[in-house]
């Protein structure tokens, strides 16, 4: 399960990172330059990354992870 979980964590962390850095960039762009067009393109990037996160979450919902219970017997796997 760990490998599977890590894959999702990684797949979410990267778009989240891009969202975070672009949100900061958007704020700073408006504060320092007031460039609305630039800010809009930054928000577009954020939206694309949000959609990416949405896809990952959807596939996460469809995934059934392998569980190892205390008795050691395995349940279902994707």
């Amino acid at each position, binding site marked *: 399960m760990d490998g599977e979980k890590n894959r999702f964590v990684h797949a979410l*962390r990267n778009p989240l*990172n891009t969202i*975070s850095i672009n949100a900061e960039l958007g704020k700073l762009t408006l504060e*320092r330059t007031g460039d609305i067009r630039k800010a809009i393109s930054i928000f577009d990037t954020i939206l694309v990354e949000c959609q990416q996160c949405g896809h990952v979450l959807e596939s996460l919902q469809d995934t059934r992870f392998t569980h190892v219970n205390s008795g050691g017997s395995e349940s279902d796997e994707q």
Partner: protein
Amino acid sequence: MADVLLVDDDKRFLDATVQLLSLLGHNVTAADSVAQARDLISKNVYTHLILDLILPDGSGLHLLEVLPAQNKTKITFITGHPSIKFIVKKLYGSNISYLIKPIDLQQLESLFEVNTPVPAKPDSSNNLHFNYLIGESAPMKYLYEMIERVAATKANVLLLGESGVGKEMVAEAIHYASQAEGRYVAANCGAFSRELINSELFGHEKGAFTGATHRKTGVFEQANKGTLFLDEITEMPLDLQPNLLRALETQKVTRLGATTSVDVECRVVSATNRTEQDIAVSGCLREDLYFRLAVFPIYIPPLRTRKEDIPLLVQYFLAGFNQEYGGEISINDISMKRLMDYDWPGNVRELRHAIHRAYIMADQHQKLLVLPENLTSPFSKIAHQHQAGIRVGKTVEEVERELIESTLEHFDGDKKQAADILGISLKTLYNRLNSYGNVEL
């Protein structure tokens, strides 16, 4: 304002962070691979390096190896896993920062805050000459002058000096002083296997020989427009030396298996721990090759001839270890005097090892280096014996006397130890000393 090199293969993140750092007033250069970053580092100086740990063509950690020694660039790794922080810290010391994803402005800005410097470090790095060399003694000042002179030319340099004097450091200093466009590439001629030496130097084409699965560029090509350092040049097999001579004469190399040659223009700095006389007598280097390599010979002084530099070197090494291990260890006057009294036959390398060993043994309460009772290493004893100097014209008696006296001096007059190491009885030693008139028994 900082000069930043940002290395990440996530294009969207890279673009946004470049813009963000630029808005913050920094000069930012972006790279999306190890190869591109390596190239940029070799040509530019950055105050900050922000690196992704995992890149398509390798790890960001590989770039640490490319940085010049004692480099002051601040290194920051971008990671998604805080746990990696501890692993890297263990491997590369504490002088590395981390950005944990998702990164925000506060994290980024913290990288550029001026932190209070680690004590002793700024002073010690200010003492560097040509970014690599330490020492204010007359022999070192002469060496700096030689480096400055040769750096202004394209002449090949032969570095001569005992083992451990820092030949590679001088080679890097020459490259630094030359402000060459190309890279500094180092190769050890003594370490190449006989079969592979030509391929290492000149490269090979795919399929040139069994096992040549890829095309490979040799060190000559890698150092194009830069500096090629060939260490232990005198250990290169004599029958393979004509190939090197040809490359130096024509400034062209042909990869093994290739039909055409490639132009290469680089300064060759070679090095040996043999003396010029020894090179001539032993015939380990072809005469024509010697003259090609030694257009400008530079002799690097042994540490025992510049003992006034020992405190500077000790402080420098100490500051480095303190920074690496996050400690605050210093040295007292008694230990420093002992270090200055010793002859260091293994030169700066031996001194650095001694400081490292003493650092590990340091008294953590008093925060002081603890030197071993006996500073000598097995190698230094051998070197001492050589130093006693057997030369034609000396009588057996003179050599024996010199051997006995230098052995006694080595053991601070301890006759029992001297007799043991000389393989003679204590009685014989006393008899000999009597005959020399050394009456203070």
